């Protein structure tokens, strides 16, 4: 098979410039006044210059990850935010106008509760459905793919998701078990057996549920679209848009679970590696198409199972990094800027992950040592991070400011840095958030 995504193609540079230009133009945004448009362009420019590493931006862009903080700040429960889109909109506008970060994050992760209900989602608990109304949704980790099913996944990932994984995680889609194998539908005699399941009541009702979920999502999407338009029109670009996963995490988080995937390293090493390779082109496509839908250039890629402690350096290099690197190259090739969010700490990975083209990605760290990161991966990539969430939740403003000062000193020199939090700010004290953003904006001048 042809070896793909080993290095970026010659067109990557030009494509990235074009995408930045489109983002910067703010075309189609209903700016309230010229100053808002000016502020928007200024902020996108800060991000662009921080990312490209060609020259330091005028000052460090300040882009904390709001997480669910705006909801709690507006006095809403998580339930209200997931079920009442007007309230969600108010919360988001209020967060942006009160704190004025250099970029906001679309509330697209505050997914519509009624969609989850229609699908009868089994792999998450959400407010009012397994967790309290004031609590965030949480993932229910299980083996949704059995160890003996690797080959099925490798042979046909899409078919596996459709007729094995979906029936397990969506109660309403259980009848998808009976879906026909699609490449088997080719000549005329193949049509009747392929069509028959669609005539049966179980699959018909599953499809109705799916349409119901879709309809609710369309309503929600329109609301989120309005929120985004109105926030951007005030001069705040979005920090990211689009989403994809490292192939190892898709297997480890979603299909096999932590215990499953980490024991597969010993029990099924070859299948695990092959499955990662097999899923890579699909994860590249998912990144590209979700960016297209979001109208953004920075797909968010949360990284989980490759963190320090989860595996050895050798295991990281063997099982985690090869397919992640291909995913990155595949996205960079299209001119996109992967936003690699390394949860936990990545102190042992800094050397390996520096093997990337210059100025093409953002490495967003949670608990990694930023001084060390600046010395290593900071030479080839823009860094983002990493005010600790625990400090924002339990510390005082003066402690927060102290930390911010040290962080800017460690990671902020010569550009290539986006000031942010180590994680989504749910649970943070508002006075700490304010102190952090104000200090960073004021003291993030270059030089």
């Amino acid at each position, binding site marked *: 098979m042809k070896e793909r995504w080993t290095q970026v193609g010659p067109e990557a540079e030009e494509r990235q410039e074009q995408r930045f230009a489109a983002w910067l133009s703010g075309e189609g945004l209903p700016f309230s006044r010229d100053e808002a448009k000016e502020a928007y362009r200024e902020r996108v420019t800060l991000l662009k210059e921080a990312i490209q590493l060609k020259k330091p931006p005028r000052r460090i862009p300040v882009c904390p990850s709001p997480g669910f903080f705006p909801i709690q700040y507006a006095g809403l429960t998580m339930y209200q935010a997931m079920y009442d889109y007007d309230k969600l909109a108010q919360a988001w506008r209020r967060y942006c106008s009160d704190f004025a970060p250099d970029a906001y994050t679309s509330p697209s992760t505050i997914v519509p509760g009624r969609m989850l209900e229609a699908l009868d989602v089994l792999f998450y608990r959400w407010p009012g459905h397994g967790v309290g109304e004031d609590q965030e949704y949480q993932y229910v980790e299980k083996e949704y793919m059995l160890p003996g099913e690797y080959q099925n996944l490798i042979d046909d990932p899409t078919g596996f998701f459709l007729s094995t994984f979906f029936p397990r995680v969506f109660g309403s889609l259980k009848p998808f078990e009976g879906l026909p194998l699609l490449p088997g539908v080719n000549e005329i005699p193949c049509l009747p057996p392929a069509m028959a399941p669609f005539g049966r009541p179980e699959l018909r009702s599953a499809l109705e549920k799916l349409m119901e979920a879709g309809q609710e999502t369309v309503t929600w999407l329109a609301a989120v679209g309005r929120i985004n338009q109105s926030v951007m029109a005030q001069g705040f670009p979005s920090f990211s848009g689009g989403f994809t996963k490292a192939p190892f995490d898709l297997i480890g988080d979603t299909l096999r679970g932590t215990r499953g995937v980490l*024991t597969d390293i010993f029990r099924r090493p070859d299948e695990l590696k092959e499955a990662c390779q097999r899923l890579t082109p699909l994860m590249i496509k998912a990144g590209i198409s979700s960016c297209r839908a979001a109208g953004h250039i920075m797909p968010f890629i949360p990284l989980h199972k490759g963190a320090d402690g*989860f595996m050895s350096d050798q295991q990281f290099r063997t099982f985690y990094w090869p397919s992640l690197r291909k995913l990155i190259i595949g996205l960079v090739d299209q001119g996109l800027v992967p936003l690699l969010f390394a949860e936990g700490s990545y102190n042992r990975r800094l050397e390996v992950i520096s093997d990337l083209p210059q100025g093409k990605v953002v490495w967003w760290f949670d608990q990694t040592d930023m001084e060390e990161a600046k010395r290593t991966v900071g030479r080839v990539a823009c860094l983002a991070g990493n005010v600790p969430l*625990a400090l924002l939740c339990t510390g005082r403003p003066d402690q927060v400011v102290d930390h911010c000062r040290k962080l800017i000193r460690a990671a902020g020199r010569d550009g290539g840095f986006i000031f942010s939090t180590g994680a989504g700010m*749910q649970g943070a004290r508002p006075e700490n958030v304010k102190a952090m953003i104000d200090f960073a904006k004021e003291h993030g001048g270059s030089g």
Partner: protein
Amino acid sequence: MPPDLVEAIAGMREEEAKALAQEALEAGKDPLEVLEQCREAMELVGRWFEEGKYFLPELIMAGEMLKTISKMAEPYLKQGSGPSSERIGRVVIGSVAGDIHDIGKDMVAFLLEVNGFQVHDLGVDVDPQRFVEAVKEFQPQVVGLSALLSTVLGAMKETVAALVEAGVRDRVKIMVGGSAVDEGVAKFAGADGYGKDAVAAVSLAKGWVRG
């Protein structure tokens, strides 16, 4: 006794370890000796984990091998003759109310057991009151509270407060840990210590039971 069983387990050679244990048991070796070898292997794995040679995958694999071999040995054990290795202390552990994550907490529990503690694992989403009851019932020297979510730090604090309220706070040392936790959170919650990882948690607990 197959002297290689310790090596096979600690070396992550699962099939070999299972075969060796099966062979030994079928040959009429003392099942307690087989289990003792498992314990030795766990100690090795724990030490290598502490030294940064082993990581989560090895810890989980070792746990799985221990479980399998213990089950294999069960029918060979005489009634009431289970392993009676001495325990150095008791720990009550759980993920606090509102948090359903268990991986980190499980690792700490596992490593504590390997290091000779008797661990009462209350599971996830544990109400403060259940911690209080467990402390009264099991009389641990140490209580471990785990949190991955930043939104349950308040619940962590409430758990400590509930132990104070019930008048049992002074009987125990409380350690906190998890991805959302740091030194500052320990102070905020009113705990006695923060463990950065499972190794740190074990050394905290050991320090406390030794007095």
